[in-house]
C-alpha cells in the first residue's frame, strides 16, 4: 500500500505600481491595481476555477477517497475576495467535502521566518485566523513561504504547536535518503517533516507538456506505474506544486485536467491512496532526523534562499524592511499594517534576483520589471515612503525602549480602566442581586463612590493618550 499526498500552493503578491522618487513623501498608494486585477482574474479563469471544479468532481466521483491540501497566502485570499469572489465560494464548497486540508503559512508569503521571528509568529497567527474565518479549519500542518526551512524555523514552528511541516526534499540535505518517508526535525523532535518529491512533482508541473522529454506524453497509467514500482517500504509520495500548474503552467489543451481526473482510477488499480498531510502525520512514523543548518527552499537549482537573498540589492531591501518591524508592530494604524503586509511578499525580492543562468530566466518570466535593478529602485522608493509614514507615527529619535514604556503606560492604563470597569460591573451586579435579595442597604453606600470612579476615569482615557502622543511628537 502506498499513498500520494497532494498539496497545492496559491499565492499572488500585490504588485507595485511604477513609483517614482518624486512620489516619496507625497503618494501613499503603492499598488498596480490594474495588473493585480488582471493577473488574478486571468489565472483564476484559466486555472483556479476549472481546477477547483475538477477536484470537486473527483471528490464526488471517488466518494471522498481523493484528498488534497491547499496552502493559500493571505494576500492571495484578499485578492481573490476582491476580484474573484466566486473562487472563495468554490473553495468553501471544497472545504465542506471534508477532503481538503488547509495548511498554515505566513499571511504575506513573507521571508519573516528568516528575518524576524516575532513577525513570523504574528503572521502565521493572522493567516490561520483568516483561514478559519473563511473555511472553518484550524490548520495543523505548517508550510513556509516557498518551502523555506531550516533548524531554527523548525523550533519556532513546533513552539507554535504544529505537528508537522512541509518542505523541499533538497538533494544536498537528503543525500542518499529518500524523500518518500516522514522525517523529524533534529531541533524539534515532535515536528514531523513531509518532503517534496521533486522529480515526480516537477514531472507534472514543469515537464508534463514538454514534447522533448523522453517520457512524453505522460499518462496517468504510466505515472502511477512509476509510483507503484517504488520500493515497497517507500510508502509516501509528496506531490507539491503551484496550483497554476493546472491550466496556466500546463495549458488546458495539454490534457493536464484529464490526466488528473484519471489519477484516482489508476491509483485504485495499484492500491495507492490519497492522504492529506495531517493523515500522513497521524499514520506514519518518522524514520530519521533531518538537520538543516542553512535554509532550503524549492526555488532554483540551488534549492536555497538565494533567489530572495542572493545579492546585495535583496539583502539591503530586506534588511531595511525588517529594521522597522518592531515599530510597525507598535502601530495601530490599519493602513500601515496593511502596507506592511503587502510589502513583505517574497515576490518583491524575487524580482531583484540577478541570477543569469538558466534559472534566472524563471525570475524574469514572473517579474513585472524588465530588470532586477528597476525592481529594486521601485521597491526602495516605495519602502522609503513607507518608512517616512512609520517615522511620522513614531519618530525614530525616540528609541524603542522609551517608546515601549510610553506605550506600555498607555496600555496599562487601558488595562487598569478595564479592570476597574469590570470590578464596577461586578459590584453593580452584586448590588442588584443584593437589592433583589434581602440584604440591608448598608453596602450600597459603600459602592456609590466606586461607581463614580470609572465615570471619571473613562473619559480620561483618550485624554491621556493624546497628551502622550503630543509629547512624543515634541520629542
Amino acid at each position, binding site marked *: 500500500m502506498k499513498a500520494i499526498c497532494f498539496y497545492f500552493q496559491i499565492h499572488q503578491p500585490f504588485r507595485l505600481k511604477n513609483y517614482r522618487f518624486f512620489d516619496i513623501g507625497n503618494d501613499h498608494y503603492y499598488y498596480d491595481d490594474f495588473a493585480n486585477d488582471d493577473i488574478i482574474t486571468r489565472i483564476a479563469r484559466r486555472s483556479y476555477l476549472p481546477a477547483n471544479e475538477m477536484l470537486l468532481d473527483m471528490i464526488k466521483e471517488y466518494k471522498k477517497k481523493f484528498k488534497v491540501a491547499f496552502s493559500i497566502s493571505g494576500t492571495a485570499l484578499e485578492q481573490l475576495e476582491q476580484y474573484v469572489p466566486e473562487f472563495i465560494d468554490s473553495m468553501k464548497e471544497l472545504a465542506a467535502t471534508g477532503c481538503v486540508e488547509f495548511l498554515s503559512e505566513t499571511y504575506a508569503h513573507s521571508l519573516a521566518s528568516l528575518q524576524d521571528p516575532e513577525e513570523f509568529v504574528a503572521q502565521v497567527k493572522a493567516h490561520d485566523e483568516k483561514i478559519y474565518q473563511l473555511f472553518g479549519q484550524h490548520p495543523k500542518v505548517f508550510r513556509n513561504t516557498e518551502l523555506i526551512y531550516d533548524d531554527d524555523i523548525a523550533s519556532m514552528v513546533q513552539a507554535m504547536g504544529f505537528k508537522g511541516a512541509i518542505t523541499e526534499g533538497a538533494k544536498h540535505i537528503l543525500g542518499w535518503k529518500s524523500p518518500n518517508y516522514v522525517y523529524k526535525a533534529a531541533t524539534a523532535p515532535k515536528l514531523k517533516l513531509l518532503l517534496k518529491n521533486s522529480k515526480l512533482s516537477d514531472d507534472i508541473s514543469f515537464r508534463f507538456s514538454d514534447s522533448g522529454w523522453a517520457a512524453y506524453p505522460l499518462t496517468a497509467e504510466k505515472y502511477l506505474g512509476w509510483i507503484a514500482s517504488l520500493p515497497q517500504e517507500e510508502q509516501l509520495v509528496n506531490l507539491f506544486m503551484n496550483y497554476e500548474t493546472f491550466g496556466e503552467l500546463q495549458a488546458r489543451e495539454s490534457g493536464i485536467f484529464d490526466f488528473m481526473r484519471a489519477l484516482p482510477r489508476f491509483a485504485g488499480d495499484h492500491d495507492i491512496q490519497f492522504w492529506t498531510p495531517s493523515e500522513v502525520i497521524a499514520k506514519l512514523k518518522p524514520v530519521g532526523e533531518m538537520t538543516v543548518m542553512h535554509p532550503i527552499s524549492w526555488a532554483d537549482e540551488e534549492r536555497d534562499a538565494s533567489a530572495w537573498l542572493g545579492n546585495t540589492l535583496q539583502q539591503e531591501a530586506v534588511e531595511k524592511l525588517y529594521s522597522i518591524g518592531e515599530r510597525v508592530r507598535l502601530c495601530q494604524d490599519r493602513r500601515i499594517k496593511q502596507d506592511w503586509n503587502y510589502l513583505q511578499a517574497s515576490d518583491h525580492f524575487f524580482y531583484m534576483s540577478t541570477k543569469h543562468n538558466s534559472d534566472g530566466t524563471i525570475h524574469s518570466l514572473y517579474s513585472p520589471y524588465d530588470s532586477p535593478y528597476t525592481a529594486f*529602485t521601485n521597491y526602495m522608493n516605495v519602502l522609503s515612503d513607507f518608512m517616512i509614514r512609520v517615522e511620522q507615527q513614531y519618530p525614530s529619535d525616540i528609541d524603542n525602549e522609551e517608546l515601549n514604556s510610553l506605550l506600555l503606560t498607555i496600555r496599562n492604563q487601558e488595562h487598569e480602566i478595564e479592570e476597574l470597569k469590570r470590578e464596577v460591573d461586578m459590584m453593580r451586579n452584586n448590588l442588584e442581586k443584593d437589592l433583589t435579595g434581602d440584604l440591608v442597604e448598608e453596602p450600597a453606600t459603600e459602592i456609590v463612590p466606586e461607581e463614580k470612579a470609572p465615570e471619571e476615569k473613562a473619559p480620561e482615557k483618550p485624554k491621556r493618550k493624546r497628551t502622550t502622543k503630543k509629547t512624543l511628537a515634541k520629542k
Partner: protein
Amino acid sequence: MKALMFGWEFPPHILGGLGTASFGLTKGMAECGDMDITFVIPKPWGDEPKDFARIIGANCTPVVWRDVNWDHVQSRIGHVMDPQQYYSLRDHIYADFNHIGTNDLGCIEFSGRYPENLLEEINNYSIVAGVIARTLDFDVIHSHDWLTYPAGIHAKQVSNKPFVIHVHATDFDRSRGNVNPNVFRIEKDGMTHADHIITVSNLTRRTVIEKYGISPDKVTTVHNAVEPLSEELLNVEVPPKHDKIVTFLGRITMQKGPEYFVEAAVQVLRKVHNVQFVMAGGGDMMEKMIRLAARRNIADRFHFAGFLRGKQVYEMLKASDVYIMPSVSEPFGISPLEAMQMGVPSIISKQSGCAEILDNVIKVDYWDTNAIADAIYSILEYPSMYRQLRENGLAEVNQITWDKAGAKVINIYKAISGLTP
C-alpha cells in the same frame, strides 16, 4: 592564416572608437594563435605597437616608380616600416599614377584624419591597396568601416581572396537617419562586394539588413570588447570631492542624446541636492546644452568639463558615482565598458549596441528622462544599488575580452575560406 586588414586609425593616434576597436580585435586575434596579420593604415606615426601585426602605411607605399637608395628610404620611413618592404611594394606598381601628385618616394600623402577632401583620400587609399594586394600573400581581406571598403574591394578584385567587412557604424547611426548619399553608396557597395559582413551589435546588424538590403545569412554580429586597464589608470589619483558626481562623457552631438541627460538632471536636482552633473566632451550641440542648463536653472550644479584626453578621462571616471550614456543610436559604445572597468555604475540607453551584452547596468530608453532620473536617484540614494552595480559590473566587464571576439572572427574567416564545413 594570413589576413590583410585595412583600417583608418590605430592607437595611440586615435580620433574615435574605431581605432581602439580595430586594435583590440587585431590583438585578440593574434592571441588566438596561428594568425599573421598585416594592418594597413593611411598614416602611421611609427609608435604603433607592432608585436602582433605588421603595420604598412599607405603613405609609405609607392604608386609611382622612383629610383631611391636604401639609405634615403631608411631615413624617410625606416621608423615606420622595413625599407625592404618598400622595394618589394615598388615592384608591384600596376599603372601610371603620376597625375595624382606624389612625393620624393613616389608615395601619396595622407592626412590619416577626416579631412574636407575625405572622398579623394579614400580613393587614393584604394589605389594604394592595389599595390599592396599585388605584393603581399594573404588568405583573407578585412576592411574596417566604410572608409576602407573601396580599398578592400580593390584588393579582392586583384587577388580574388575572400573579403570581409567590419561595420563599426553606419551612416544611419551618425546622422539619425539623414544619410549622406555618397557615404551610403560606398557603404552599400562594400556590403554588396563583401563575402561576409561583421557588425558590432545586433542593432547594427538589423540596420545593415533592413536599410542596405543585405541578406541576413551574410551578416554576423561580433560584439566589441575592452582591453584591461593598466594599474596606473586604475589607481589614478582624484582630488577629494564633497558631492556625488554624475557624468556624461562623449561627443556632445545629436547621436549621443545629451539633452536627455540635462532633462534627467533637472528632475534629480529637484529632490537631491548634494550632487553635481558633469558633461565632458565637445561637439556641435555643446552651446545649446549650456543654454538649456541655464534655462532650466541648474547651471550651478551642471558643469561642462570640455574635451578630456588620455588620463583625464580616467580621472573623471574615477571621480564619478554614476556614468550615463543616453545615446539615441549607438552601434556599440565602448565607453560604458570603460566606466565599468573603473567601477562606476552605468546607465545606458537600450538603443546602444553594448546593451545587448551587458547585464549589470541600468538600461533605459534614451527618451525616457523619467526612467533615467529614477535610475540616477536610485544609485545615489541606495548604497546596495551602487555596490551591486559596481562589483558585478566589474566582474562582468572583465569577462568581455578581445580574444573571444577574435576567435569568432577567425571562425568566420575559416567558414568563408571553406576551411570549416
